[in-house]
């Protein structure tokens, strides 16, 4: 039971990271590999706001959300829009997003140096609760709650709002969206902003949960996030949520039941097994995308 709680806790951060990752892919058919740098930047910005600017954490997290959105706009402008007209825009965007991600990390290093950064010990209240013999910290509850609210909020926005309708129209047929008078550039920018906003919050939540932030913190989760969205079904928001939680649970069980050195073997082995059974991913559709 305690393992389930811990697994959900880690998994909700994976899921939050992955849902932003898969959003850009699902709507725009682009893989944004600067997403991991946004994750790291979210952590550093959160620490900056809480420690240097003296902002309480409940205000720092929404601020990180906004800052992440701005980073998303920058990524779209620098890495994707200039190359949008190319025939290999898919691949070109992939490469240029790696470059923009590297630039973000270089800027973070220029400001903070290479060392690990931490929140002050009293940043987050250290309450613990015992429920049915399971120990849960306030921090864990908060991380899970914030992740869930953001993920459900994103899903509702895509399914019901005016912007979400336009995003789905752009996903299916950008030309038809333009004919209808939708400003496709603006919808594209908004998609990147939403994606990066969630990626940045995932970063600050991760930094809070392990109380440290490193420049390299995005690399590990980038691979996991990629695995999660492939297993969940590329572009599926539900798939990213379920996949992220599943990965968190699998990891915790692998560590406690078999041993920590087996964690990645078990986790990625299971992901491969899922793909062998369902190549399109858990929630992916088999439909061949029309060009």
């Amino acid at each position: 039971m305690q393992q389930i709680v811990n697994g959900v806790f880690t998994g909700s951060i994976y899921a939050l990271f992955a849902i932003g990752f898969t959003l850009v892919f699902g709507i725009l058919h682009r893989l944004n590999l600067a997403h991991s740098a946004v994750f790291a930047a979210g952590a550093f910005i959160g620490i900056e706001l809480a420690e240097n600017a003296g902002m309480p954490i409940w205000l720092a997290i929404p601020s990180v959300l906004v800052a992440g959105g701005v980073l998303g706009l920058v990524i779209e402008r620098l890495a994707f829009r200039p190359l949008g007209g190319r025939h290999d825009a898919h691949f070109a965007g992939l490469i240029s997003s790696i470059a923009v991600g590297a630039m973000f990390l270089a800027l973070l290093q220029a400001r903070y140096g290479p060392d690990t950064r931490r929140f002050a010990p009293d940043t987050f209240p250290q309450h613990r609760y015992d429920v049915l013999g399971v120990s849960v910290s306030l921090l864990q509850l908060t991380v899970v709650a914030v992740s869930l609210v953001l993920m459900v909020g994103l899903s509702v926005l895509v399914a019901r709002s005016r912007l979400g309708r336009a995003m789905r129209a752009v996903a299916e047929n950008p030309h038809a969206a333009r004919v209808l008078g939708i400003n496709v550039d603006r919808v594209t920018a908004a998609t990147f902003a939403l994606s990066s906003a969630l990626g940045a919050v995932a970063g600050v939540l991760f930094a809070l949960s392990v109380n440290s932030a490193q420049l390299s913190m995005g690399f590990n989760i980038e691979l996991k996030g990629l695995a999660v969205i492939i297993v969940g079904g590329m572009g599926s928001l539900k798939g990213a949520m379920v996949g992220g939680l599943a990965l968190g649970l699998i990891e915790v069980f692998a560590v406690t039941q078999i041993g920590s050195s087996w964690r990645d073997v078990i986790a990625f082995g299971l992901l491969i097994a899922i793909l062998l059974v369902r190549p399109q991913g858990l929630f992916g559709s088999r439909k061949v995308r029309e060009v």
Partner: protein
Amino acid sequence: MTTDASPALQVDDLVVAYGRVQAVRGVSFTVPSGGLVALVGANGAGKSSILNALAGLVRPRSGSVRFGGRDVTRRPAHELVAAGLVQVPEGREVLATMTVDENLRLGAWHRRSDADERIDEMYGRFPVLAERRALQAGALSGGEQQMLAIARALVAGPSVLLMDEPSMGLAPKIVDEVFAVIAEIQAAGTTVVLVEQNARRALRAATYGYVLESGTVAHEGPADDLLADRRVIQAYLGIE
């Protein structure tokens, strides 16, 4: 016909090129307000390229487009739709995975305040769409999809409607329905520019026509005159 100060559309010396290939080579024409102007010609004559340039979907290389007296050359499509210059695209381009209702709501993108009323109006006008409103647009028949494409353009409240091959791929009976709808749209005061390969049909519906050939205007005149013109009949209409 009309004596408005400025025509609905005034196109001057329009050139559209894709790379080195010129699809439209200096076309000029006028669409009077309230008129129904047909652009006819063979496949590849440049009809669709003209329409896409007017709609802001393709940037013309040179020339100018005036819409209601205002220069709108190279303005993006979303501005033009908001201003009332709306296209019904070739091949209908309904959003197949979205419902009929969502398609109409997207058509009303720029009508934030009266979207619901306009959509209800379309349901009154096209009862088949009302019946199918919760269905995915991809599940509709070709004729129903064409009606949806037209309704979706009309909810935007166009003053000029650009229609690209609305009869393409439809059964003759459905083509009759589509042309009946086009006549209604014009009767209601909307200016229509109609691009068709079905030249005879288009000219019968139109007030004025342009016959295009390799990106230039080969013939023009009142539609009835073109229908009676021996050269036009021989080259484009064939013997009925």
